[in-house]
């Protein structure tokens, strides 16, 4: 009916409609993600994949370029979200998240044709002659990317870049511990990307568990070793291959022949300058000699003051601790008996502001909490050794870390370190930079993870490399087939050893 006047009856109807409308809107907005939703999501994406939506070069490049637009058009919002979630300084957000992503996207766009082209295989063996072969890259299908809270944009979009360039449909689940970033990611990806093949699911444990019950063609997870196990176990039910980017205690070994000023600066920039120590490749603890340790401490103190001033709690150049859970975890580490009295610098805390000052400790007990779990915060223990040689045993006695660092000019030590220290990656005379190098595989080993990515390794991580053999009908060695005889056996032996001479001899009956 055409209600023109604001009489009470029409007002009543309008009020009712409005409230119904409001109720439905609210319901739709806060709709809880349930099991059926997870199934529907995967079904829909699988249909898109089967229809070939994601396979073509054009689609992949278009999506990648849209990701670039997100970086170009929304950097201030990204910086703002990261500041909300983590107190991340603008420079870190701009450089370590957005700029790195831009590079990653540009590289993928530039190289995609090359990456997608089959690899020719040089030789096939005489037994299979005549044949030619190649390796064809094909997408795995529908993949799941679960990312972490500390670099919420980088660790969400970088794997997605890999998934898309390899031609997959992808679901991204950002971390709920960085809610502003999670919600911005959901909004931007929905706005810019093809939602028939790329989707974001926000949520926490419940939603993640529901997602993990589905059958995925690959799961890419960044986070803790504890959850990594749960992910792999869920993946095992469907024989889903996984990449697990986990963490560990990345040691820094400092030799007395190093340039201490630069060493200290790089350690500080790599630790407190990267999300305030809350990074998977953060320098976790230092190993140096008893003799050299005082110099190391002095250098660190000096450079820390140069970077963050006399009152680091006031500095705007460091992220805060992500939340009170982690704050309490770190506080407890500091308060442990035999640890609290080893603080030589810093130690101040402010729970309201979720801040802990850059803190250095010396020779805490090796079995203390701070030396047993990944610190993931602004605390830096220094363990002193009688001689530097002992560092190998210390490192080897612990789970394999994601990164191991060494500062030295001693060529032999560098070689020995690179060869014998098992870690995801090794960096000599610098900290963390290998993360930004697209030509190096970035991943862990043992407790620090499995699989790798960055650059082409990301494309490979989300591809199946299918072996293709082209055979012709020319020549069919009777020796392949029953009935079997000694002559056939001899010829086979010769072929298997690719011994041309022997083959001819047998064929000519001379053997």
């Amino acid at each position, binding site marked *: 009916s055409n209600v023109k006047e604001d009489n009470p009856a029409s007002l009543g109807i309008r009020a009712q409609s409005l409230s119904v409308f409001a109720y439905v809107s609210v319901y739709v907005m806060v709709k809880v993600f349930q099991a059926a939703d997870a199934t529907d999501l995967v079904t829909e994406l699988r249909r898109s994949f089967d229809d070939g939506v994601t396979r073509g070069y054009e689609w992949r490049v278009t999506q990648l370029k849209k990701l670039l637009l997100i970086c170009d058009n929304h950097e201030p919002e990204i910086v703002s979200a990261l500041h909300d979630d983590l107190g991340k300084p603008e*420079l870190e957000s701009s450089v370590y998240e957005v700029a790195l992503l831009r590079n990653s996207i540009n590289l993928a766009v530039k190289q995609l044709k090359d990456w997608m082209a089959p690899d020719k295989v040089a030789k096939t063996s005489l037994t299979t002659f005549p044949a030619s072969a190649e390796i064809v890259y094909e997408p795995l299908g529908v993949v799941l990317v679960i990312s972490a809270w500390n670099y919420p944009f980088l660790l969400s979009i970088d794997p997605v870049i890999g998934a898309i360039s390899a031609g997959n449909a992808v679901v991204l689940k950002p971390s709920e511990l960085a809610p502003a970033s999670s919600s911005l990611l959901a909004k931007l990806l929905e706005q810019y990307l093809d939602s028939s093949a790329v989707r974001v699911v926000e949520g926490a444990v419940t939603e993640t568990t529901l997602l993990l019950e589905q059958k995925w063609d690959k799961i890419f997870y960044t986070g803790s070793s504890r959850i990594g196990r749960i992910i792999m176990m869920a993946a095992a039910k469907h024989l889903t291959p996984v990449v697990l980017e986990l963490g560990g205690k990345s040691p820094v070994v400092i030799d007395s022949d190093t340039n201490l000023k630069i060493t200290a600066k790089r350690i500080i920039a790599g630790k407190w300058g990267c999300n305030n120590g809350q990074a998977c490749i953060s320098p976790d603890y230092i190993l140096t000699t008893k003799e050299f340790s005082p110099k190391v401490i002095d250098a660190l103190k000096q450079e820390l003051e140069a970077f963050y001033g006399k009152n680091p709690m006031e500095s705007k150049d460091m992220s805060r601790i992500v939340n009170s859970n982690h704050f309490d975890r770190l506080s407890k580490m500091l308060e442990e008996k035999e640890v609290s009295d080893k603080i030589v610098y810093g130690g101040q805390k402010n729970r309201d502001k979720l801040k802990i000052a850059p803190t250095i400790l010396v020779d805490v007990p090796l079995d203390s909490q701070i030396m047993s779990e990944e610190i993931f915060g602004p605390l830096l223990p220094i363990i002193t050794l009688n001689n530097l040689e002992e560092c190998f045993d210390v490192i080897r006695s612990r789970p394999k870390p994601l990164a191991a660092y060494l500062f030295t000019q001693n060529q032999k030590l560098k070689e020995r370190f690179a060869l014998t220290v098992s870690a995801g990656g090794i960096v000599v005379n610098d900290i963390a930079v290998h993360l930004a190098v697209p030509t190096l595989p970035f991943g862990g080993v043992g407790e620090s*993870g499995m699989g790798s990515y960055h650059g082409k390794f990301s494309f490979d991580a989300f591809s199946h490399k299918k072996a293709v053999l082209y055979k012709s*009908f020319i020549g069919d060695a009777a020796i392949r*087939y029953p009935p079997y005889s000694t002559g056939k056996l001899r010829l086979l032996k010769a072929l298997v050893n690719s011994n041309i001479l022997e083959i001819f001899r047998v064929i000519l009956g001379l053997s």
Partner: protein
Amino acid sequence: MEEVVDQSLREMRDTFASGRTRSVKWRKTQLEAIIEMVKDNEDKMCDVLFQDLGKHSTEAFRDELGFVMRSATTALNCLDKWVVPKKSNLPLLFYPSTGKVISEPYGTVLVLSSWNFPISLSLDPLIGAISAGNTVLLKASELSPNASAFLAKTIPSYLDSKAIKVIEGGPDVATILLKHQWDKIFFTGSPRIGKIIMAAAAEHLTPVTLELGGKCPTIVDHHSVSKDMKSVVKRISGGKWGSCSGQACISVDYVLVEKSFASSLIEMLKPMIRSFFGENPKESGCLSRIVNKKHFQRLARLLNDPGVQASIVYGGSMDEEKLYIEPTILLDPPLDSEIMNEEIFGPILPIITLRDIQESIGFIKSKPKPLAIYAFTKDENLKTRILSETSSGSVTFNDVMIQYMCDALPFGGVGESGIGRYHGKYSFECFSHEKAIMEGSLAMDLEARYPPWNSFKLTFLRLAFREAYFKLVLFMLGLKK
């Protein structure tokens, strides 16, 4: 048993920690020893394969002994090349840093092999593990007991027994082994057990390679290969019945062909089978037998399904005593029968007819991704469709099984057919951690890298990361804001 495992693990770990297995010389010595072991024991090996599976010595040599010797020889010849670190080109931004990737052994690895090719599926992964510098424990399958016993007895007298160990046993032993932490697990077997292995590996974050199976379809596009049909039939028959009687992960599981050609195909298969095995295949000595009663009964059950029985057009006779099943051809068994829904792993060949060979694509896609797809066709269009619309571990055109022999190709599955790959250099990579090494210089330093942050540093870094070097120079000269 628990103690044996504990002690073995401890010894292998100590050996690895000593660094002995890292030396290329040690690895080559072990590889040479494997070749020697096979050469010295050829007859014994053929013997155990005959006892366990009724394999003819030629088949045993072709599929197992010869294969292992070639694999070890390749590794020997290529090892020096494989261990060389790979240099990585770093972007200019990182000058003068250098980067490379080193292949490092995982440590102490576990190889669980299967019963159908008990020698090659044990020794080939071993070759990979050793060339990569690991210590390794091998558990061969208890379903091929003679081969398993042979390996357990012979390997210690040829190889470094503090680094390479063999353990015998069944699921109970496997369970004990899986409780421990390994640095890598390599498993060949069924998807069902593969899931159990992966779940056990998850407890310790152990990376796995799972070589599983599936129903490998064979497409026969009779239009385009009519000239070579005899070859087609020979290759299919040889692949199906000539290799462990169809009990192979890459065996021809079923054939897809157009209805109009089905009977011709069958009429060509029959004499081919007879030419291989004579009138009485049971007595030919060239047909492997079924491995054990359990599998025999499984296959009998598949065949005894009434719908399946009705579809038998050749063969069908069985002898439980001798664990013999005749090479059998089925024509259009019901698509919902068990035999069309699980990996057959036996000498029964269903032929599924289609109206148009193009339908084979959809048919294959309706099933889990197999380890291999075979297609006999010269139709480029069909080849392209197969490659781009189906997914499988591998695709072979105009032959079957042979991709296994080509060690320049990675051998492995996807989806239900497996995770990871090996053969040739892929075996070396399978058992290696690719470790990135980056070295920076302490001589040069960029102030912009360090706090306190300001807008100069921000702009500098933005330009540097963009590799906008020209703009960067302008910026530093104050000529650009």
